[in-house]
């Protein structure tokens, strides 16, 4: 594996087994996350962004399950240099629990409901240390105070004693970030971390994440609907559609030479989105097909302006490299 790569996902399939049928939430997605860089993940609601993230941590809720594929995690620390295939582990495997919260941690959209309402912020932050470094449990309170200070929470001595409902939305998200970074993970997964915040607070949280990233040299997987936020945060970008990755490229190429008709349509809809900040990406004609009944061929062919009959509705397009580090899964670019 390329030493610069932290996470390498290959042909991941994660399904939900519902009474009405099987939802292929992630349907053969492949992507890589480079060490110390930010990977932006964009796509319409329901395209499988969150489930991909949950798969990395093996916390896909029932009745969902990783069906097949590889999620390789590269650990290089001092003399240690090994690659773990996460899909080989059980969700309850002790090694998997070791990885969660210490090597890979996650923050969520709703900082209010993502904390337990009946435990203090301090209690919930210290827990990470107590779980992963029980030998350092005595230092936990001081380390929590220190981390709260680093993420810009004023008066940490008082705020550790607070309950989540006593903090403002922005403060809660800062506390959530502090909790995730407590053990200096090599990957922070942020699943729409600013969607629930107002614009000013959003800008502050984004700045905080960039600061913490350069301090801790961690990679970030940044999930969002907002192409504006992607432009600001991401180094590399993957575009997802119906459980598949349809385009990956460095952030410049995404905005300057988008290839996939879906991405092109998304970019054209930007001005409209900016007027209603935070609105979900729904500016493209047609609707996402029912995930229980995915069409054959390219998942986007029903809405595609460049639809090629007999090809797009029959063959799933393979990844084609169009430039260095820029691939697209579309029949327009296969030769």
């Amino acid at each position, binding site marked *: 594996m390329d030493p610069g790569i932290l996470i390498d996902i290959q042909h991941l399939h994660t399904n939900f087994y519902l009474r009405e049928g099987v939802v292929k939430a992630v349907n053969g997605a492949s992507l890589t996350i480079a060490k110390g860089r930010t990977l932006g993940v964009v796509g319409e609601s329901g395209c499988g962004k969150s489930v991909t993230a949950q798969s990395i*941590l093996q*916390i896909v809720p029932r009745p969902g399950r990783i069906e097949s594929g590889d999620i390789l995690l590269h650990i290089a620390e001092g003399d240690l240099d090994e690659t773990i295939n996460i899909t080989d582990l059980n969700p309850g495997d002790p090694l998997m*629990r070791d990885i969660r*919260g210490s090597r890979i941690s996650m923050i*969520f959209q709703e900082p209010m409901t993502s904390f337990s*309402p*009946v435990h*203090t912020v301090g209690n919930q932050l210290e827990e990470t240390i107590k779980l992963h470094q029980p030998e350092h449990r005595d230092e936990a309170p001081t380390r929590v105070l220190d981390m709260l200070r680093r993420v810009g929470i004023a008066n940490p001595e008082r705020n550790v004693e607070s309950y989540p409902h006593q903090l403002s939305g922005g403060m809660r998200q800062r506390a959530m970030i502090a909790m995730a970074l407590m053990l200096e993970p090599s990957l922070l997964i942020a699943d729409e971390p600013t969607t629930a915040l107002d614009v000013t607070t959003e800008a502050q949280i984004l700045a905080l994440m960039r600061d913490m990233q350069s301090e801790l040299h961690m990679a970030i997987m940044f999930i969002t609907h907002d192409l504006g936020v992607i432009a600001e945060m991401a180094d590399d970008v993957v575009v997802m559609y119906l459980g598949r990755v349809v385009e990956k490229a460095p952030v410049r190429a995404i905005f300057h030479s988008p290839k996939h008709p879906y991405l092109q349509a998304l970019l054209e809809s930007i001005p409209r989105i900016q007027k209603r900040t935070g609105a979900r990406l729904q500016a493209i004609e047609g609707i996402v097909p029912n995930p229980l009944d995915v069409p054959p061929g390219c998942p986007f062919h029903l809405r595609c302006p460049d639809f090629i009959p007999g090809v797009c509705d029959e063959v799933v397009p393979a990844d084609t490299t169009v430039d260095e580090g820029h691939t697209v899964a579309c029949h327009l670019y296969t030769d």
Partner: protein
Amino acid sequence: MWKFLLQRLLLFIPTFLVISVITFVLIQAPPGDYISSYATQLEASGEEASEALLIALRKRYGLDQPVYVQYVKWLWGIFTRLDFGHSMQWNRPVGDLIWDRLAWTVVISFLTIIFTWILAFPIGIYSATHQYSGFDYSFTFLGFVGAGIPDFLLALVLMWLGFAFFGLDMGGLFSEAFRDAPWSWAKFVDMLKHLWVPVVVLSVSSTAGLIRTMRANLLDELRKPYVITARAKGMTEWHLVLKYPVRVALNPFISGIAYVLPQLVSGTTIISIVLSLPTTGPVQIRSLMSQDMYLAGSIFLLLASLTILGTFISDILLAVVDPRIRLE
């Protein structure tokens, strides 16, 4: 927090007064005053109602005085001397009759609550975390059966089984030999041998209900994002379920304690008659039938006070466990 508790405590006083008024109205409800019905009762049984006793009683309760004075005197007697009045039927002070029974009522109700919780919480938690498993389905089925069986029937069946197979008399709280004996270890053991029957019988339907509620509450909580957060931290499944969602799912039970008590107390009445237990229920029914209104009224007043007390306790507990309430 203290303000909250003080508010609740202050609310206690008017509530008690309202209940005592209702109780007093209840006592005065039958036509005629109670001394005259008492005299009629004595004469009907062929005895002579002694004029001296009647006058003493009239004076004691101030029956020649206006109703509100009587009320104040009754309440004053309760507050200053714990004097709840005189029972016509037993010709004894009400206090002598009810303290023991009240204690047994509280003991049996309390044990039933504890037993219900010990049974219902683990089963409810397991059912929710293993939704749609064989275990979950079995207990759903058993729960419906348990909720459907009338408890007096269950009591009768248990009594019959005990008698038919073990030659045991399960009625009452003590065997013949210990009934009037002073307290001893042997008597205590004998009591336990009897006590489990009403506790089990009374627990069955409430356990069934509680399992359903616990399961539903916990299923709701298990879907909350904070559970995912805890999982993403690397906690083991049992650790996180017990620390977070179970803790939150318990809140409704704590606030429900107050309502468990009156339900149980009225629930024990039939069982107490079937199993001849020395609780307040049977005495209350008889006193109502014979219009022994001071006795009936006092039992009512005490049970109602216990319920207010229960409300107060569950308010305190809820404030202790739920910071969202405590820090309002």
